[in-house]
């Protein structure tokens, strides 16, 4: 009898599944409630994770840096000299741009957020951020780190939000190669690499070329770094080229991100 009871119990998750499939708003509301209630615990857990990351990744770097201390000091001096030189060049550049009536973009307004939870499926790349609509985050905001584009905001709850990362199989970004100016779509495949699809057959794309956001569509501003082209081949239908792109961001080590609120022009 008890055994049969567990067979009958199988109907419960099926009912849950049908109910939440039928009513997506209920699904969202339960997610929102859960993430809001459990946020403090996940923030605490992510602090522990950051500590573990620090031990794992930075202990090796520290030992390496101690060994190369003299080399680094010499390099710092050299770079400081270059920095002064570049600062002068930057000032000159600004003066010349003013003369040419160029409009320099203002520094974009961003909101910093911490990754407090990650999807446990190996191929899904959706993370939970510790900021939400109460912190002015909105759906479809671009998410970046200093190395480049990370993804976009997928769902916003009051105190948390889900961000979909570029390697997720459901992620799509309109992109552009920097030298050949070939346009395509960056698609995630659930691994450490990205695909650049729908490149024209006559596009003169080269291996090692940088890929940036094209600014087509309203989600991502133009010029955000995505990665470098690793290989190019014809796609399966033979109508386009398909490039494999190595992302500039290491997606397994993301702890903090910036969400772009606006990219106002002067």
């Amino acid at each position, binding site marked *: 009898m008890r055994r049969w009871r567990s067979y009958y119990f199988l109907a419960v998750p099926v009912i849950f599944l049908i109910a939440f499939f039928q009513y997506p708003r209920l699904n969202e509301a339960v997610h929102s409630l859960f993430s809001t209630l*459990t946020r403090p615990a996940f923030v605490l*857990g992510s602090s522990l994770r950051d500590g573990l990351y620090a031990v794992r990744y930075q202990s090796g770097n520290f030992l390496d840096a101690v060994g190369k201390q003299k080399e680094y000091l010499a390099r710092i001096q050299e770079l400081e000299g270059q920095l002064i030189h570049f600062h002068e060049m930057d000032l000159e550049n600004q003066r010349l741009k003013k003369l040419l009536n160029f409009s320099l973009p203002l520094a974009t307004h961003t909101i910093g957020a911490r990754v407090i939870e990650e999807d446990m499926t190996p191929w899904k790349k959706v993370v939970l951020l510790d900021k939400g609509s109460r912190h002015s985050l909105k759906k479809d905001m671009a998410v970046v780190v200093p190395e480049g584009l990370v993804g976009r905001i997928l769902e916003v709850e009051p105190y948390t939000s889900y961000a979909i990362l570029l390697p997720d199989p459901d992620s799509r970004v309109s992109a552009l190669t920097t030298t050949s100016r070939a346009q395509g779509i960056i698609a995630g*495949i659930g691994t450490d690499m990205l695909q650049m699809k729908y490149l024209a057959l006559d596009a003169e794309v080269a291996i090692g070329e940088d890929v940036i956001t094209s600014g087509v569509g309203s989600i991502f501003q133009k010029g955000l770094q995505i990665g470098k082209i690793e290989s190019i081949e014809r796609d399966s239908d033979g109508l386009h080229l398909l490039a494999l792109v190595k992302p500039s961001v290491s997606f397994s080590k993301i702890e903090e991100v910036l969400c772009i609120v606006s990219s106002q022009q002067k």
Partner: protein
Amino acid sequence: MHRLVSAKVIFYFFLLAVLDGAVMPAFRIGSVYPSFLYLFICYVAFEWGAPKTVYVAFWAGILRDLLGGGLIGLEATLLAALALALDFLVQKMERQLSGIYFFTTFLFVFCAGALRLLAGYAGDLPPSLVWEYLGAIAITALYTSALLPLFNFLTDRWFGHSSAKQYELFR
């Protein structure tokens, strides 16, 4: 035998969910990291017995659905169905065989991952990617099942069980 609706079990569930969602990524190998919620289902099947596995699998599935941000009930259904198969396997298996717990856990985690892949992307993926994902699932299963002895030890301690087993000589 432990009561499922107790503060100790509920807190343990929640702790495992936080560990899975927020802490375990620090132990990532490549793109995979282990899941304690899967291990808890296997632990319940091995130690607490048949009727409780399905209930634990259901709640573990609900927690994984909530953590993943997707459709609630999907993983709960898959895990509850798999838990029935796991119960059946545990009842039939020869417990004295070396490595049987490891193998059963591996099989359970692998099947759970493969079914999740099938439910999420049935027919949408090219075969090369399917093989790649199955490889990642197999590594996840291997990694997760390798932690079974440690998890059993900690869970035994948490619930105050003795690790020494008694076997009946007569029925």
